[in-house]
């Protein structure tokens, strides 16, 4: 029997976003696989060159739907570094809270995402519903559930509303109470063990060679986390651990995501305690937002996204628009390289498992 070619995605319950993998299979086994990005290509990076610095604040969160705040953070951080602006302390703590909440929400989405290909639908229901609790917080804090457009150069757009701290703490308490349930339904589940353990293996050397970061590299025993190795915001002022595994398979990657949730909760609680009163932003440029200018220069800033290292390389010619913005999406190495290299030899049904546990976010690739 010869090879059969078929398309996985862009529309498929197991596909993570508008992305496609062209697979050549023999029987159930993938012989070759080719990533086909571009279904969501908006040309984010090029669009940014044609928009005012401030207008890009509405564009950048769309580069990654499940984790928009990472983009806001990188963009703002880059501009602040170019302008030499010191962000008020309160704003930095608020940013940390947002980023960690987004991390939890994203991990929940990942649990949901793995449910489809495994046929374990309780996972998606729970994951999406509990993620919504965090989106409720975002709605109260930022005014929007998905695209927050809240982290801006110089700080955050508004101060925290009253009673939001209670809301956050209650939600965290709820999430903590749910962790055992998740442990039971996902991690002590025979289906999950059978389908994930030893699947979509990635060894340390290859991961390093491919530039895999985040969970992908940490699952091979490398404790690489930007929050620890190059702390931004106040990550060096809070206590937390970076869970690491050595197996490098899909199960350990999913497990690491789960283990990161209590760590994020720990960070948020500390941030809420340590956060002082005060200003939440400072002007970084003279005049109004239409005349916002960033000093000449170039900068690379990076933060730890749920999928790994997320970086922005920003070049400013001192004008009203960015001269160039290039984004290092964490998904890129693990998806485009990984698909071609690692999917051959696996079974068809393991393809979405690779995509989910490695954490692909297609717009980030299609930037």
């Amino acid at each position: 029997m010869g090879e059969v070619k078929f398309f996985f995605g862009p529309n498929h319950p197991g596909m993570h976003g508008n992305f496609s993998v062209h697979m050549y299979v023999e029987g159930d086994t993938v012989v070759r696989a080719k990533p086909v990005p571009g279904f969501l290509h908006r040309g984010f990076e090029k669009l940014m060159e044609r928009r005012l610095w401030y207008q890009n604040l509405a564009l950048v969160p769309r580069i990654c739907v499940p984790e928009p705040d990472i983009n806001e953070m990188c963009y703002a951080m880059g501009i602040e570094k170019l302008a030499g602006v010191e962000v008020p302390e309160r704003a930095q703590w608020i940013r940390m809270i947002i980023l960690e909440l987004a991390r939890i929400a994203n991990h929940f989405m990942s649990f949901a995402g793995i449910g489809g290909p495994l046929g374990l639908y309780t996972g998606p229901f729970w994951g999406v519903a509990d993620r919504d609790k965090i989106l409720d917080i975002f709605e109260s804090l930022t005014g929007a559930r998905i695209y927050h457009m809240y982290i801006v150069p110089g700080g955050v757009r508004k101060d925290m509303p009253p009673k939001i701290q209670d809301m956050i703490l209650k939600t965290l308490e709820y999430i903590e109470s749910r962790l055992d349930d998740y442990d039971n339904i996902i991690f002590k589940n025979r289906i999950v063990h059978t389908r994930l353990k030893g699947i979509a293996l990635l060894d340390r050397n290859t991961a390093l060679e491919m530039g895999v970061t985040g969970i992908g590299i940490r699952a091979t025993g490398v404790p690489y986390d930007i929050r620890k190795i190059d702390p931004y915001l106040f990550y060096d002022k809070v206590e937390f651990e970076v869970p690491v595994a050595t197996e490098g398979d899909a199960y350990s990657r999913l497990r690491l995501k789960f283990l990161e949730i209590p760590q994020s909760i720990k960070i948020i609680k500390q941030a809420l305690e340590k956060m002082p009163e005060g200003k939440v932003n400072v002007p970084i440029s003279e005049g109004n937002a239409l005349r916002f200018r960033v000093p000449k220069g170039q900068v690379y800033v990076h933060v730890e996204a749920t999928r790994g290292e997320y970086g922005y390389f920003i070049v400013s010619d001192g004008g009203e628009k960015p001269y160039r913005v290039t984004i290092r999406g964490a998904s890129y190495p693990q998806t485009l390289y990984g698909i071609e290299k690692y999917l051959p030899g696996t079974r068809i049904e393991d393809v979405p498992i690779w995509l989910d546990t490695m954490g692909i976010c297609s717009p980030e690739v299609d930037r």
Partner: protein
Amino acid sequence: MKKNTTAEKDFFAPIKAWKFLFKKPVTIKVPYVKREAAERYRGFHINDWEKCIGCGTCAKICPTDAIKMEEIREIPQKYGEKPQRPVIDYGRCSFCAMCVDICTTGSLKMTREYVHISKDPEDFIFIPTEKGIHGIENVPIGWTRDENSDLLELERVEMEMLQGSERVKSFIEYVKGYSKEQAMHEAARCVECAICTDRCPEHMQIPEYIKSIWKDDLNEALRWLMKGKESENYFGANPFSGVCGRVCTHKCEEACSLNNRGEAIAIRWLKRYIVDNIPEEDYGKILDIKPSPKNKKVAIVGSGPAGLSAAYFLATMGYEVDVYESLGKPGGVMRYGIPSYRLPDEILDKDIAFIQALGVKIFVGVAVGKDIKFEELKEKYDAVFVSTGFSLGRSTGIPGTEHPDVVQALPLLREIRDYLRNGGAKPKVPKSLVVIGGGNVAMDVARSIARLQMQEYGKVDVKVTSLERNYEEMPADMEEIEEGLEEGVKFYPGWGPIKVKVENDKVIGVELKKCVQVFDENGKFSPQFNENEKTFLNGEMVVEAIGQAPDYSYLPEDIKNKIEFIRGRLLTNEYRQTSIKWLFAGGDIVNGPDIIHGVADGYWAARGIDEYLSQKKEG
């Protein structure tokens, strides 16, 4: 974590799962349960039309081009407003609320609504009003701007100037002008709504030259000032940019959209910054005006702002222009009316020098009607433009005004300026002075005499009295009043003069009665007095500054009979053409109460003359 190990699940796990049956679900039954959005939710838009001025700043900041400005016919034309309102296209809107945060009036807000269902796609493009997309009263408000999210800088960059106690000691210009950094910062506040352009009588291209400052391109800025829209016959150009950068009545700033929530852009000072920072000798190269000669000659009577502006625009068109001025120097009211602490001679000279550099000839000390007959102008030139201004003073006519120590404002100001430029005798400096009038001319007199008093006697005793009952009612600019106060001038608003009291042939002051009303309910000037409430202001000299009058003595009777006058002013068409085809008029004697109106008159008259002479040629 070994491969394929069986999950270590609790023996009781299946039983435990039953607990979920009794838990409250996290989902809600839509539409039976209504979910309230968060307080700062970014839902649909609402716009308070009463507050909105149609500036379009929301559309400019919109990252997705979801906002367009649409002309609304029902909205009345008002200064400081555009008859436009934002239209939102929800097919494009990213719900970022930057439009709300940058709104210059605070009229835009977002609601807490998040559901809008319609089969008609057109329903998703709408002009928000206070009732929002669903047309309901009391829409739940969501995202509103606060001081943290505000995207405008509301405070203007402060202008450095001498303190009142210092500046009253001399006639030195007291406003220092912006530095480069200050000017660029101030320019960065502009939202380019161009409401100022609509308001400016000359329609100067204000946002454009402000943007050039922000870009640090002063040459480009000067081209905007002096050439306006070159492709549209210099529309919006102002040859008196140096002068207007100092003494313009700056209606533009009153109209500035930032005025609604903060301080208007310092448009006047920014204009001054451009002119001050470009040497006169560079003008020619930067502006590069190369007119094509038209072999036609135009005479201009009067070298005030209207006359010289007309000369400038005509010269750029290629006409040969001769200007006749009866006084010793050109400039009219700019030279002889406005005190040098507000407008130094060298600034005016700089503006006039460039006009002359274009080939305009100015004949000073030549009074039309005396030194040269008006009829001769008709014979020698293809068209004539008159702009002789309001050169005569007006008197209250109360008893005592015939005394030589009761003088008119304009001649006195002329005397002071001539004296200061070493061109005339020293004017009488009274130890105490009463100025009657509440306009800018009254302020000029009061502040000039205050300076002379300070130099002569070391103290100020100037009293200004006016019918207007408070500073807001007075026609003078508020800054003139405030600065006068700082310089020691005392104000007595709300009094009408009865008589100038003279004792032993010397003026000793003015008797006044209480003014209870200046304008009637229709806004017409109709002063009413309380005859029982009187007061007296002592002063050994009195200046009447209650308005000026035109002097048409240079016009022959037959011309006067052919042209139409309305309340002392000449009637012209939009191109400042009188009923005599070759005679054009502008400035105070037509409609311009200030310099910028004069410049506008000069511009439109030049366009009118060009059109008239072109047709004449064709004919």
